[in-house]
């Protein structure tokens, strides 16, 4: 972590001043918001841009033949182009706006999975996945008679790739779904190995980038995946917007998911034909302003620089792990800082995570407690919940210090 680097440090005070929530005082103190893996705060640039959009460029998109509608369409489609560039995708046709990350994954499960899978096929997820990248695959396997296989992990929460052969022995591997970064323990998954293995078996790959997209540069071309899902609310964008990227050929070959306005080419009583990409998968009035807001968030992240954000979070994670290692009664889950994102999950010997989080709240420290929508991972560790601190561009080492100090108070309370 003290290696010499050409990446200049973030100007955190300046960044912080872009986020109105940090002007408020919580019990007299600035908020130590350590729950960005759950959802991020929003900068002024996004909020003001959003209001301006509603005030002077709002109408329904695509179908309007007047000035406001043209502005709205330009804003909405401009966001699609920003998202395309952000992901290094070939074409805006491959960028589908959804409600959230969960819907992006469900789109693939429903529109690809239900139609393509059958007995003898194997659908693979991992024990570390968020429920949104686990339950849809479990469900489509059950509905179609395919096998559902789950890649296990070791005690560090790192995937056990030795299990891959046995999984391949269970049938024809058709789909492999995994996240880039675990949201509950922060481990970074071995993407290349998983994709290499999936390709060997001719399987379609689905990557859950919900925890990666806000924090690191992504490039779908070099990743070599088939589908990638992300969610806006974790990356400074409004709630209510997610993205599915997919290879054009695959998306073209798929049935649609939701049906209705905008996604059709022609409708008669006898027959309906589907619109071209991406409209085919965007039924009804889309989250217009939310997509526009995602575009503004991408602008913001790009201006600050994802590499600098990643380096900053790595510094905070390393620092937090050092400090927590020295704190009484704290056990941190997951791999060392080198192989994790900006997420630190832990348990405390004497108190339940909910009680921990509650007392931290009274110190103005906001963390999340629970299973983080990863019950299989919790089961893997033999626990039901953790307390989780997660970092973003507006956090500082002071936030970490406040976390550690507040933890001492928790221990004192439950002593």
């Amino acid at each position, binding site marked *: 972590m003290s290696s010499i680097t050409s990446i200049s440090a973030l100007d955190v005070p300046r960044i912080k001043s872009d986020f109105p929530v940090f002007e408020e005082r919580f019990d007299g103190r600035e908020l130590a918001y350590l729950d960005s893996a759950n959802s991020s705060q929003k900068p002024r640039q996004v909020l003001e841009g959003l209001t301006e959009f509603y005030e002077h460029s709002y109408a329904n998109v695509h179908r309007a033949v007047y000035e406001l509608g043209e502005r709205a369409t330009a804003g909405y489609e401009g966001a699609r182009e920003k998202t395309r560039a952000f992901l290094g995708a070939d074409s805006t046709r491959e960028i589908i706006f959804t409600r959230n990350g969960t819907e992006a994954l469900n789109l693939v499960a429903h529109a690809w999975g239900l139609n393509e899978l059958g007995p003898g096929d194997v659908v693979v997820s991992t024990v570390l996945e968020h429920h949104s990248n686990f339950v849809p695959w479990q469900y489509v396997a059950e509905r179609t008679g395919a096998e559902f296989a789950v890649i296990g992990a070791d005690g560090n929460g790192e995937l056990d790739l030795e299990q891959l052969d046995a999984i391949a022995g269970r049938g024809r591997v058709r789909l492999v779904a995994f996240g880039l970064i675990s949201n509950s323990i922060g481990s970074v998954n071995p993407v290349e190995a998983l994709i290499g293995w999936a390709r060997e078996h001719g399987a379609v790959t689905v990557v859950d980038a919900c925890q990666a997209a806000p924090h690191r540069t992504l490039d779908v071309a070099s990743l070599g995946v088939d589908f990638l899902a992300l969610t806006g609310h974790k990356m400074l964008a409004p709630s209510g917007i997610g993205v599915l990227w997919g290879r054009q050929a695959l998306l073209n070959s798929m049935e649609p998911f939701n049906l209705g306005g905008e996604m059709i080419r022609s409708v008669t009583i006898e027959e309906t034909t589907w619109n071209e990409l991406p409209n085919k998968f965007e039924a009804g009035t889309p989250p217009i302003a939310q997509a526009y807001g995602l575009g503004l968030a991408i602008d913001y992240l790009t201006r600050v620089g994802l590499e600098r954000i990643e380096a900053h979070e790595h510094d905070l994670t390393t620092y937090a792990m050092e400090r927590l290692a020295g704190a009484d009664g704290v056990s941190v889950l997951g791999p060392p800082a080198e192989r994790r994102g900006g997420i630190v999950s832990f348990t405390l010997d004497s108190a*339940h995570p*909910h009680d921990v989080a*509650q007392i931290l709240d009274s110190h103005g420290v906001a963390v999340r407690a*629970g299973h983080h929508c990863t019950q299989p991972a919790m089961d893997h560790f033999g626990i039901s919940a953790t307390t989780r601190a997660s970092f973003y561009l507006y956090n500082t080492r002071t936030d970490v210090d406040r976390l550690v100090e507040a933890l001492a108070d928790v221990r004192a309370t439950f002593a």
Partner: protein
Amino acid sequence: MSDLYRELILDHYKNPRNHGELDPCDAHAQGQNPLCGDDIAISMNFSGDDVSEVRFTGRGCAISQAAASMLMELVEGRSVTELAELPKEELLDEIGVPLEKNPARLKCALLSLGVLKLALHRAKGTPLPEEWAGFEER
């Protein structure tokens, strides 16, 4: 320190009253809070229309476990009919900390009461009131 963790709650949490299981028993139910995994099981014996004995087991946060322990003290010796109608305010008063602003923790606090209601209505064969409908399915 948070208002939620007053002395009494910590005492009930650390020294739960009526902890355990009755087997066999006249009424039993179990429930979880899907948000946080808190888990409570309650077993009871009746004597006539009264609850003669009650026990709970569970795991979870201090609020849910302390509330269950406090509930035990409210229950013993009262009639099934009365308890089936026990207003949640009575338990909340006992807990005595402000939970209105905090629906997540309110659910923790009321978990044991929901489980109690389920056990009683099942034993009596009466339908669970709408207010507790979430517990039915568990």
